[in-house]
């Protein structure tokens, strides 16, 4: 019987800060990271707001990455490397004391961000900046790790899938430790135009911090965020051997494909419900044990409606008793990074017994009647929590974290 898979370290960069503690305190305080776009001139775009990583990042990352390597990375890849190094430090891992052939890296990557905002792309570095395995490769190179090392792309569920894959490597005895994460930014002119053309983005530009309003009656689309989240998954045996702090257990997951539509989720959230059920079945956790759901909660009309219906399908009468919140109300949608960033928030909710809020829920949608933890965070014992991620193309993931 394989042992447990546990979380021993985390690193995060987002619009709410460049480190784990700053992010967590801002999330608990219900702070919005959304502002006007500064990365390029967005004055002609329909959407002119996003959750940008603070400008101080550029100096911050020089402490982590040498100039030579930095020149071969995009800004997004650099975010990933910083978050990964922070996670390794947080976990207190000394790889010289580990079997490096049993240490892996898996990154959820939609794209590396080699877009028009990258001003220093040249023929010499364009391949390195564009290759979708760059993030996992650089992390592996930094620590000379020799276990499996790869990238996964399942759109907005990418890094949630990466966590599931990392879980499998450990459970199947292929690795002792897996650095799992994701980083993303689609804050560039062309992608914002593309998502605007799909009517997927909020165009409520003023004031920016009020635009992302999951589950609200006046929601009008998601707000783009950017950042990176990295989690150290480890076998319980390895973590105990190292004397590591264990922040939670990754108890299991559910993955599924809807096979339905390239953009829209299955009607009434059937695919989402199937995924959550699959996740709970994989763990043997009963419905009444679930204390919190970190929702995908994008602030789009369909996602929030269907996710609510899906939770009702799965939990029945229990649904109204479970606190549900959307971190995207504060961070925006970090796309490929969302799975691990929201995974980290879920883990910290368990560790600190504190549920972060859904901000901007000033006008609740009368059709959406669950407990979305509006406006302010809530102290409550959290032993079991789900984290949902649903991607364009019908890629669904639900992760189940349990108090250790």
């Amino acid at each position, binding site marked *: 019987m394989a042992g447990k898979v546990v979380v021993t370290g985390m690193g995060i960069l987002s619009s709410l800060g460049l480190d784990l503690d700053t992010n967590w305190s801002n999330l608990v305080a219900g702070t919005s990271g959304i502002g006007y776009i500064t990365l390029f001139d967005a004055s002609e775009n329909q959407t002119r707001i996003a959750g940008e990583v603070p400008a101080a990042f550029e100096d911050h990352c020089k402490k982590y990455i*040498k*100039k*030579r390597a930095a020149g071969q990375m995009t800004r997004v890849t650099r975010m990933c490397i910083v978050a990964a190094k922070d996670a390794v430090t947080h976990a207190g891992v000394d790889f010289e004391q580990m079997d490096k052939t049993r240490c892996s890296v898996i990154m959820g990557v939609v794209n590396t961000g080699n877009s028009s905002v990258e001003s220093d792309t040249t023929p*010499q570095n364009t391949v390195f900046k564009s290759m979708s395995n760059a993030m996992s490769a650089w992390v592996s190179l930094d620590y000379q790790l020799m276990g499996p090392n790869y990238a996964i792309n399942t759109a907005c569920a990418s890094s949630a899938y990466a966590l599931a894959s990392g879980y499998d490597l450990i459970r199947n005895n292929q690795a002792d430790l897996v650095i799992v994460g994701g980083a993303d930014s689609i804050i560039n002119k062309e992608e914002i135009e593309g998502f605007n053309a799909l009517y997927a983005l909020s165009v409520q530009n003023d004031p920016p911090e009020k635009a992302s309003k999951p589950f609200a009656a006046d929601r009008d689309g998601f707000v783009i965020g950017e950042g990176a989240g990295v989690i150290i998954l480890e076998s319980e045996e390895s973590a105990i051997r190292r004397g590591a702090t264990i922040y939670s257990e990754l108890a299991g997951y559910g993955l599924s494909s809807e096979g339905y539509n390239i953009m829209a989720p299955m009607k009434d959230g059937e695919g989402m419900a199937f995924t959550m059920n699959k996740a709970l079945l994989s763990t043997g956790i009963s419905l009444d044990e679930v204390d919190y759901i970190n929702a995908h909660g994008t602030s789009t009309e369909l996602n929030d409606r269907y996710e609510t219906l899906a939770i009702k399908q799965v939990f029945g009468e229990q649904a109204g008793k479970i606190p549900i919140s959307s971190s995207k109300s504060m961070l925006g949608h970090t796309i490929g990074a969302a799975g691990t960033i929201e995974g980290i928030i879920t883990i910290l909710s368990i560790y600190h017994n504190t549920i972060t809020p859904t901000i901007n829920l000033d006008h609740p949608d009368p059709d959406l009647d669950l407990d979305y933890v509006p406006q302010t965070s809530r102290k409550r014992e959290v032993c079991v929590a789900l984290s949902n991620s649903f991607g364009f193309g019908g890629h669904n993931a639900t992760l189940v974290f349990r108090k250790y």
Partner: protein
Amino acid sequence: MAQIAENRRKEIQEIVYDFFADECEVDVSEISDQTNIIKDLDGDSLMFLELIEIFKKKYSLEIELKTIGKYAVKHPVETIGQLIDMQMLIIEHENRILELD
């Protein structure tokens, strides 16, 4: 003739030292001909290509990259000194460098 070669080597050495000092963020005083490019400087193979481009422009060399590649396979470069020596040969012999074997 020997003096010309020595002067050229010094010129190449200065370019190479400055290049590695800048790219690898080390003080130029820490670099010598014995410095190992990978182990001591955390350098990479791409640096070699970038230097070739610099020297091709500086000395108007006609040599093809694949010719240098064929030569380098038989004469691997590990240290700064070896790199400078190979660069001297490239400048002197260009595409005829393969005939040296």
